[in-house]
C-alpha cells in the first residue's frame, strides 16, 4: 500500500511537472495540489473508469458549492467550457487548464472563456435568441405586465445596441471583445460564469495550503 502511494506520489509529481509547464498560471506545487484535489473529488468514481475524470453532476456540484453559482444553464455551459474534448468528463488536464483561466485568467483569457460560455450553440456568434435564453430569468416578472417577455426583449436590444459594433444583429467574438475592453463590467454580461474574489480566495486557500500541511 505504501509502495503504491509512493509510486502514486511520483506519478502525480511528474504529471504536475508537465502540466505546470503547459498551463500558465500555476507553478508545480500548485498544480500538484490541484491534481490531489482532483483525485480526491474523483473519489470512488476512479475505481470504475480511471482517466475519464469528473462527470457533469460532480462538476456542477463543485461550481455550486464552492463558487456559489446558481444558474443551471450557465453551470452547464461552464462544464462544457472546461470539457474541451467534449467527452462529457473533465479530465485532469482540462481541470487544471480550466481552473487556470477560472481562477487567475488574464482579461484576454477571460473574454475568450466567457464568449465560449455564452455562445450556446458554438457557432462563433451570440445570437439574439441565445441572449434571450440566457437573460430570460434576469428580471422579476410583474404580474401586471401584459407581455412578460417584453422587458427581456428590451434588455436584449439594449445589450445589442451597446455591444454589436458591426450591426449585424448578433455578437461576434470581435464585438464582444471590443465591448468588454471598453467596459470591463460587460465581461459577464449574460450571467455569472466566473467566481468572485472571495470564493477564489477561499478556494485557493483550501486547495493550496491545507493539503500541504496535512
Amino acid at each position, binding site marked *: 500500500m505504501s509502495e503504491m502511494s509512493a509510486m502514486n506520489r511520483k506519478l502525480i509529481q511528474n504529471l504536475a511537472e508537465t502540466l505546470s509547464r503547459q498551463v500558465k498560471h500555476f507553478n508545480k506545487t500548485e498544480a500538484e495540489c490541484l491534481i490531489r484535489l482532483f483525485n480526491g473529488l474523483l473519489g470512488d468514481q476512479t475505481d470504475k473508469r480511471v482517466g475519464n475524470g469528473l462527470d457533469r453532476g460532480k462538476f456542477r456540484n463543485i461550481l455550486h458549492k464552492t463558487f*456559489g453559482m*446558481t444558474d443551471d444553464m450557465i453551470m452547464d455551459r461552464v462544464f462544457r467550457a472546461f470539457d474541451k474534448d467534449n467527452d462529457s468528463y473533465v479530465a485532469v488536464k482540462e481541470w487544471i487548464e480550466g481552473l487556470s483561466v477560472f481562477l487567475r485568467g488574464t482579461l484576454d483569457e477571460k473574454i475568450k472563456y466567457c464568449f465560449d460560455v455564452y455562445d450556446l450553440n458554438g457557432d462563433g456568434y451570440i445570437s439574439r435568441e441565445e441572449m434571450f435564453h440566457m*437573460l430570460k*430569468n*434576469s*428580471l*422579476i416578472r*410583474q404580474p401586471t405586465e401584459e407581455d412578460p417577455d417584453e*422587458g427581456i426583449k*428590451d*434588455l436584449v436590444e*439594449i*445589450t445589442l*445596441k*451597446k455591444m454589436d459594433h458591426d450591426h449585424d444583429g448578433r455578437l461576434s467574438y470581435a464585438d464582444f471583445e471590443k465591448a468588454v475592453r471598453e*467596459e470591463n*463590467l*460587460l465581461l*459577464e*454580461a*449574460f*450571467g*455569472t460564469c466566473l467566481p*468572485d*474574489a472571495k470564493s477564489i480566495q477561499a478556494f485557493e486557500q483550501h486547495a493550496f495550503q491545507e493539503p500541504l500541511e496535512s
Partner: protein
Amino acid sequence: MGVALTRAAQWTTASSGTGKLEITPQNASLLKEIQSFVEQFSARHPQEAKHVFKEPLQWKTSLEASDFKTEYDISGVSVVSREKDMSGRPLLHLSPPLISVLSFSQLSKLLQVANERKLKEVRSCLEANRDPVVQILGPSFATVEGEDSSVLRLLEKVKGGDPSEETEVKVKLLILLQQLDTQVLSSSLKQISQEVRLSPTAVKNEVELLKSFCGSGEKRLLKSVNYTSDYEFSNGCRSPPWRQVHGEICYLMVESCDTDTLYITCSTAGIFLNGGIKQEGEESAYDRIGDVYKDLVSLLKSHSAYFANQINTQDFVVQEEPPSTQKIPHVESVDAEEPGQTQRAYEHQEKNVHDRARQQLAPSKPGGKKNLEPSPKWKGLGLPSGQQEAEEKKKGKKAEKSTEKSAETQAKATRPDSRKKAEFSRSSLPVHQSSQKTKVAVDEFSESSSESDEDEETPERRPESNTDLPSEYWQIQKLVKYLKGGNQTATVIALCSMRDFNLAQETCQLAIRDVGGLEVLINLLATEEIKCKIGSLKILKEISHNSQIRRAIADLAGLQTMVCILDSPDKELKCLSAETIANVAKFRRARRTVRQHGGIKRLVELLDCVPDSAALTAEQERDVEVARCGALALWSCSKSTRNKDAIRRAGGIPLLARLLKSPHEDMLIPVVGTLQECASEESYRVAIQTEGMIEDLVKNLSCENQELQMHCASAIFKCAEDKSTRDLVRRYEGLQPLVRLLSEAENKHLLAATTGAIWKCSISIENVALFQEYHALETLVGLLMNQPEEVLVNVVGALGECAQKPANRTTIRKSGGIPPLVNLLTGTNQALLVNVTRAVGACATEPESMAIIDRLDGVRLLWSLLKNPNPDVQSSAAWAICPCIENAKDAGEMVRSFVGGLELIVNLLKSTNGEVLASVCASIAKIAKDEENLAVITDHGVVPMLAKLTDNTDDKLRRNLAEAIARCCMWGTNRVAFGEAGAVAPLVRYLRSKDPCVHQATAQALFQLSRDPNNCITMHENGVVKLLIEMMGSNDEVLQEASAGCVANIRRLALANEKARYS
C-alpha cells in the same frame, strides 16, 4: 381710468369716503402704469396736454417749494406756475401741503420734479380724486356702472354744432383716458385671474388638518386652532352674513408655540391677519393687517418660525390618532432567491407602499379626512457601521417620508380650486402623473424652507410641467425599472447602458433623480455585488457634479454607504467611492456626514502608498491611483475646519508630505489643494514647515500646470505668516519663481495666489532685498491697475512691506506707483484699505513721494478714512497720517484745511480698540507740533481724553500716549489740566514697564509735566525720583536728559519750598 380705479384697484376696507389705496403689488403696478402714462403725456400729445381741467386736481403733496425750479414763481413756501389759464388762474398752485393742478402738462412736469417720490404723488393724487375724469372733463363724465354714455354725449355735442377746438381736444383727451383705462384694466385682470379664490370647504379641510397637529406634546406643531364661532351657515361660512358679502368665510384664533395668538381671517381672496376678532367682531377688527397668503400653512409659516421649522424638518406627529386610520398592508410577495437581491426586493416593496398610499388618498381628496400614520422618529445621524441598522434606518426614513408625502397630498387637496384645476389638467397626461405630482408637492414645501446651514446649496429649480420631457427621460425611466427588477446580470447591463447617456447633461442627471434612480443606485452600493457597486458608482460619480444630485445623495444616506465601501479590498471600488465622495462633499452637511461616519480616517488610510519609486508594479500603481482618489476626497472634505482636524488626527499630514514628492501632476493637485486648504490652521502651517514640505511646494512652483502652481503659491501665502517659513522659501529659491509667475497676469486666481505669497514673503527684510534684485517692484506697480480686488489687496500689501526699505520707496515713486495707490484710497474693500493706507504711509516717509501724495490730495483721503467703521482701517489710516504730517510742507496749514478733521481725530480717542488708540495718539503727537493746531485740539478737549486713557498696560499705547501728552503740554494750562485730570500718577507707573521706548516717551512727558509744581508733588508722592534716577543711568541720551530735567524740576521746587520756609 375711472373703471379701472373702482374695479381693479384694491381699496382698504369696505368703508367709503377717503379711502386709501392698499400697498399691494397689484396696486403698485397699476400706479406705475398711470404714472408712465402721465409722464409721457405732454411729449406724446402736446395739444391735449395743454387742455385746462374743468376743476383742479387737488391733493396733499409731499413736494416742497424747493423742489420747483424754473418756470415757477416761488414765494416762501408756496409755488405758482407761470403758465396760466384763460381766466388767469395759475395751472399749478402749491400751498403746502395742498397742491392743485389744472393740466396734464403741469402734471407731467410735476412728476419729473418729484423724482423718486413719483409713485407717492400719483398715489395721493388718486386717493384724493377717486374719479379724476370728473375733475378733468366735468361731472358729466363721471364713471357710472353699466352703460357709459359720456362719449356719445360728447359726440352729440360736436354734432350739435359746437365746432370749437376745445371740444375736439376734449374728445381726444377722453379717448386717451379710456385707452389708459382699458390698458390698466386688462393688465390687472390678468393678475386677478391668477389670484386664488378660496372656498369654505377648502378652508375647512385645512383647518381640520391643522387641528390634528395641535396638542400639548413636544412634537406638536401648534397649541390650538379654533374658530371664533361654532355656528356654521348652510353655505359653510362662519362669518356673519354682513361680512360674508365681503368674501370672508370664517375667523380663526391660532395659538402657535412661539408667537402671540394669531387672529386670522379666511376670505375668498386669501388668508390674512385681522385686527383681533374674538367672539363678536368690532368693525375695526375686520381690517387686514399684513399680507394676503394663499393658504393657512403659508401664513403660519411666515408668522411662526417654530411652525416653519417643524414643518421643514418634518419633526411633528399627529397628536390624536384619528379613528379612521388604517394600517397600510405591507404585503407584497417578492421572490428574493438570490443573495444580494434583498435590497432591491425591499425597495420594490417600499415603492408599492407608496403607490398604495397614493391610491388610498386619491378618492378621499375632497373629503380630506385624516388618514395619517404616526411616523416613527429617527433623529440624529450618529449611525454605527452595522449594515442592519443602516437598513433599518433607511426603512424608518422612508416610512416617515411616505407619511409626510401623504400629509402633503392632503394639504394639497385643501388648496384653492384653481390649483386643483391645474392639477387635474396635469393628471390627464397618461403616464407617471401620480409620482410626479407628489414630488412637485414635496418640492413646494422644500422651496420655502431653505436649510439655513447649507450656504452653498442652490435652490431647486425644476420645470413646472412634464409636457415636454426629453426622450432620455423615458429611456432612463425604463432602465431604472430594470435596475429595480433585475438580477445582477440585468442590473449590470442596465448600468452600462445608462452610462451611455450624456451624464454630464443636467436633463439626464435630473431624470435619474426624478424617476427614483438615485435610491436604487445607492441601494446597490449596499449589496455584495462588486460589479453592481462599480457600475453604480461610475454613474454616481458623473452625476454628482450636479449640486442638486449631491444634495439628494446626501439626503438618501449615500455617503454613509460610500464611506463603508472605502474598506473594500477591491481597489477600483475604493477609487470610485473616494472620487464620488470628492464630488458629493462639496457642501458642509455632506462633509460633516463623511466625518461623522469615520470617512476621514478611511480616506487618510487610502493615502498610504509608495508614490515615487521608479519602477512600480501594477499593484503599486493601483495603490497610487487609490491614493490619488483619496486625496481628491480629502481635498473636498478639507474645506471644513473640523475635517482639517480630523485629517491631522488620522495621521494624514506625513502621508500628504510623502505624496507631495510624487512626480505626477494629477496626484499633486489634490494633495497641494488639500494642504493649502488646511494651511489656514496653525497646526498645519507648523507641520508644512517642519515636515519639509516647503521645499516641494517651491519646487512645484516651477511646474507647467497653472492650477498646481496656484495651489502651491496659495499654500505658501498661507504659511508664510511665519518667519521661518519665509526663510525656507528663500533658502529653497522660491522667490524667483514667484516673481516669474507675476507675468501670468491672465489667470487671476493664480495671480492672486502668487501676489499673496509675495506679500507674505516680503515681510522678511531679506526677502525684500531679493525681490529688489528680481525687479519685482516694477511688476507689482504695474499690477496696481485693472486687477480684481483679491489681487490688489495682495499687490498693495507686498508694496507696503517692500516700501519699508527706503530704496524701494524711490523705486515705487519712479515707476509711477504713487498715483494708483492714492487712487485706491477711495475704495471700499476693508482689507484693501488697510493695505493701501499702510503702503501710502510707508511712501510718505520719503519727502519726494510725500510731495506727490500731497498734490493728489492723498492726506485728505487718508483723513476721511478715519470715518471708516472698521477699526483696522481707522488705525491703519491714522498710522499713515503720522509720516504725512511729518514730511508735508506746511503740514499745520494742511491739517487745518480739513474741515472738522481735528475734531474727528480727537473723537477717535473714544474708541475701544487699542490699536486705534495708539495710532491716534501718535497722530496727535504729530499734529500737536503745530501750535495753532494744538490750540484747536485743546479746545476739542484732547487733554481730559488723553488723561482718561493713561490707565492701561498696553506698551504700544503707553508709548504713543506719553508722546502725545508730552506734546500737548506745550499749550496754555494743559500741564495743569493733565495734573488735575489725574494723568500724572499712572504715567509714573509707565517707568516700570519693560519697554525702553515707553521709558523715553514717559520721561519726556514727565519732564513737561514737572514744570507745574502740583504735578511735581504728585510725582514725588508716587516715588518717581528713584525710578528717574535709574533712567538717568541708561544709554539713551534723550531719556537721560528728560529724566534729569524732571528730577531737576522736582528738586528746584523742593529748594524753593525750603527757601520760602526759612526766609
